[in-house]
């Protein structure tokens, strides 16, 4: 999986491309954990390039969200493709994670 990290003002935007499955979950976990450990706690993950996610991918995002929140930040999501969004709805994570339609909206939500 290709993962790009960009800075938008004081918000860190993580942009993975590919399938967020069990095979990619560790890589994503390492990237997010490293950012949080460095104190980059305003995180947005742009999932526009992710067409598939499984329970390992979900678990990785939930763990990072909890880690960021515990440190005073958050991991927000944006640009979910329809199939990926359906997985968040089935697992009810859509209600507990901060999900935005676009990257701009997600970044702006940090105020």
């Amino acid at each position: 999986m290709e993962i790009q990290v960009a800075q938008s003002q004081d918000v860190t935007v993580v942009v993975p491309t590919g399938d967020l499955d069990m095979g990619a979950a560790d890589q994503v976990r390492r990237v997010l954990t490293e950012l949080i450990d460095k104190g980059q706690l305003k995180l947005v993950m742009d999932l526009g390039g992710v067409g598939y996610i499984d329970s390992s991918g979900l678990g990785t995002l939930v763990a990072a969200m909890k880690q960021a929140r515990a440190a005073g930040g958050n991991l927000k999501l944006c640009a979910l493709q329809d199939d990926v969004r359906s997985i968040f709805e089935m697992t009810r994570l859509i209600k507990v994670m901060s999900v935005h339609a676009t990257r701009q909206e997600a970044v702006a939500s940090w105020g």
Partner: protein
Amino acid sequence: MRDGGPEGTFVLTSEPQHLARLRDWLRGELTRLKVENQEQFGLQVAVGEICSNSIRHAYAGLGGKPIHVSVQGNENRLVIEVRDFGKKFDPEAYRPPDFEAVPEGGIGLHLVRQFVDELSYDVTQEQGTRWTLVKYRRRE
């Protein structure tokens, strides 16, 4: 990993990196059986979750272990079997996800059940678990 075997059967080994090739193969089989795209996605998730369980639990994360996946279908239903040869599935050890607590794990089988009409398992073989997923086909 190899994808030999009879038509409608795929054999992968238990490295998570092989799940993408499994999905590619499954997409081809489901297309051949004229399954619509939305349903294909759900079945890819369901089969992927069962194989992930085999990797994580039956084989405890060890690579190089076989997992067999087969697909059969007719105008009424699709039957997908996933077979591993590791530690047998133990329903007593399974804890359904607690959605009130924002689960990080345990949601794989929950997802499988969202996408198939029947899910069963057979642990009567000498080794491993045979999972059977059934999806009834909608009539136009």
